[in-house]
């Protein structure tokens, strides 16, 4: 105690000395003033030090009285600081959080997945085929994420394909510092179209996407663009947002987007959500995606059995209505819980369809094309015991109405567009999974897939999904 007050005194004197030194050329009056000031300073300091000493003594006394309780937050904070200080600090301390998702499958399919198609719908060009036969490594995901500075957070998700390809699934920055419920992101991200599209495949409840996601979004739509979202200041959850994108994937076209300035796709969405008591939480969403595809191509075989490339140019408008409901007794999902989920897709396309744009068969011919198609799925997943879940999903696509000018005008036969022939695919899927911990999951899935007209496919899939590294966070 004496040491500290002596130290403070000598500091005050030293400070005074410094004032003297800088003022060596001053007059006597100035010096007198300065002396007076130093004296005052010294007195001030002494008074304050005395007061501090008194307070310290008082604090010590009261601390002594309450010896059983060391309630001084400062002491605790110091001890905590000690704990933190004992941790070795290396260059790696500022590395982004890293996590790795690994998955592998065993598939037993009654039909060759290479011949997979979804009849009645223009192929979306995405990774829509079912899992491969036999043992395969699935897609691995490498996630790197960290805060950039007080304003931004960056996330990169690389997908490492079993076929030795590397792709960017997501790579975006998002704001941390905006207020009033606003958030913005830029880069590549899973588009806010419907519910499941924004969720990473490793967190899906089934080993594959719904048929509707396959035909309307090319399995999963990741868009290059910007997103702005606003959350309303109400107890009932409401958000609304907009995404402007490059149009790099189906339903826009061509692949990787058009070579033009401006916007290639626009999506608006809104969600409403809340709780019913403590047991149930729900969310509904509506989104609308508009694109102007140019030369969006797909492969088909014409009436002569020759492989041709057809291409569509025009406009595509997609509406998606989604709903999710999660139930758990008292909101405690660890023992039992139920998740219901469904989405309805409706799409209008209009423009021109070019038959055999590559001139492989009878040469390019162009005609008007329009279609109004829809599809939906509904699924239920129930955790019937800790670690065990079972689920069922029903998929249905409605071929709806479509008109091909080349066919109605008699220039080509309907058989020249076999994949577009009117057909409404369905699929039934059952699954059961076991999660040894929240970081690992094994899943057995059986599907009866009637995507191909007149050729049902029985698919059995055994899958593991494991996540390593930084703790993941999952959307509702």
């Amino acid at each position, binding site marked *: 105690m004496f040491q500290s007050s002596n130290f403070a005194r000598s500091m005050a004197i030293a400070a005074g000395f410094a004032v003297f030194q800088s003022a060596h050329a001053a007059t006597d009056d100035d010096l007198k003033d300065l002396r007076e000031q130093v004296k005052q300073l010294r007195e001030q300091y002494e008074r304050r030090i005395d007061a501090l000493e008194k307070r310290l003594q008082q604090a010590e006394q009261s601390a002594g009285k309450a010896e*059983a309780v060391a309630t001084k937050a400062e002491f*605790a904070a110091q001890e*905590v600081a000690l704990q933190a200080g004992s941790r070795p600090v290396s260059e790696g301390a500022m590395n982004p959080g890293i996590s790795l998702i690994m998955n592998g499958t065993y598939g037993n399919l009654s039909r060759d997945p290479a011949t997979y198609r979804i009849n009645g719908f223009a192929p979306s060009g995405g990774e829509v085929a079912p899992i491969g036969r036999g043992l395969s490594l699935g897609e691995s995901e490498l996630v790197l994420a960290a805060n950039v500075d007080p304003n931004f957070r960056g996330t990169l998700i690389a997908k490492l394909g079993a076929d030795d390809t590397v792709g960017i699934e997501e790579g975006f920055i998002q704001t*941390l510092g905006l207020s009033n*419920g606003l958030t913005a992101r830029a880069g590549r991200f899973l588009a806010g179209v419907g519910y499941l599209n924004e969720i990473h495949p490793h967190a899906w409840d089934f080993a594959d996407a719904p048929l509707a996601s396959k035909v309307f979004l090319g399995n999963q739509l990741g868009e290059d663009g910007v997103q702005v979202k606003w*959350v309303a200041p109400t107890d009932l959850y409401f958000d609304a947002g907009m995404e402007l994108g490059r149009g790099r994937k189906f339903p826009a076209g061509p692949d990787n987007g058009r070579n033009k300035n401006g916007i290639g796709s626009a999506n608006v969405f809104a969600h409403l959500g809340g709780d019913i008591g403590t047991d149930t939480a729900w*969310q509904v969403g509506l989104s609308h995606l508009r694109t102007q595809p140019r030369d969006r191509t797909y492969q088909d075989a014409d009436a002569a059995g020759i492989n041709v490339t057809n291409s569509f140019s025009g406009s595509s408008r997609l509406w998606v209505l989604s709903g999710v409901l999660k139930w758990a007794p008292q909101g405690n999902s660890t023992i039992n819980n139920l998740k219901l989920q469904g989405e309805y897709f409706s799409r209008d396309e209009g423009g021109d369809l070019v038959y055999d744009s590559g001139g492989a068969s009878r040469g390019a011919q162009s005609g008007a094309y329009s279609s109004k198609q829809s599809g939906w799925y509904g699924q239920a997943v129930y955790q019937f015991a800790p*670690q065990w879940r079972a689920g069922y999903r029903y998929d249905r696509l409605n071929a709806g109405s479509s008109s091909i000018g080349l066919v109605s005008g008699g220039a080509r036969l309907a058989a020249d567009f076999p994949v577009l022939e009117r057909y409404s695919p369905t699929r039934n899927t059952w699954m059961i999974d076991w999660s040894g911990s929240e970081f690992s999951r094994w899943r057995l899935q059986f599907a009866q897939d009637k995507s191909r007209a007149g050729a049902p496919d029985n698919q059995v899939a055994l899958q593991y999904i494991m996540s390593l590294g930084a703790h993941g966070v*999952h959307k*509702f």
Partner: protein
Amino acid sequence: MKATTSFSVFVALACLALPASAAVSVFACEPEWAALAQELGGDRVTVYAATTALQDVHHIEARPSLIARMRSADLVVCTGAELEAGWLPLLLTQSGNARVRPGSDGYFEASQFVVKLEIPKLLDRSQGDVHPGGNPHIHTDARNVARVAEALSARLAKIDAANAQVYASRSGAFLARWRAALARWEHEAQPLKGARIIVYHRDWSYLINWLGLVEAGSLEPKPGLPPTPGHLAELLGLMQREPARVIIYSAYNDPRAAAFLSERSKIAAAMLPYTVGGSDRAKDLFGLFDDTIARLLAGAK
């Protein structure tokens, strides 16, 4: 001129009306911090508890309702130490509320103000769901509640300086009552000193440390993994050689494993409220510890 006057009257009235409606909106991740914020803030705060005592706070969905509540919060009070790692970060990024961003005054992590136990020497998930920052269940030691109360009261005073006096006096009154209760609890718990207990999850380490109990084992084979028959059989063997006084589990745990072991080992199982709302008596923080110690004493008879 008249318009100006009526405008100033309006502004003056609005200013008068403000304090009543401008209570600090507190978003508490856990019921214990909700209760504490209510004790310290009184009518100057409105408190929303994101979870209940019957939920496992490790596994909470980032529900829309939670995002909506965080959107308008002035102060987020959570445990930290990765307890909420699976859902809190999402709420923070989705809610678009810069007031409660980590590092700002509106973000309060209780675990930063206490000394944490069980900081793992080996960080490896083969050891279960380990928390790198140490055991996060800090509030089961009542002394920690006092430490957090001091820090939280100071934080409330900082973000709502106009009511700093109120917070200071409420905190003084609360701590005085708490110290008296602490002395009582410690006295009541004297017979438990050295008692061997079986826990469900290691969310009782701070209580064990505080009251001088001895953890003889846990129903979970590894932290965060549900009990397995093999592990329970092993525990039963241990209990036959060296019996424990009581088996404890939390209100949110599945009671079956504790009942199974209790039945076969003839050791009483006691459900502890774990946090505010976990039992009828645990209506507030005082009731929580009254009931916890009463149930421990009854179980360990």
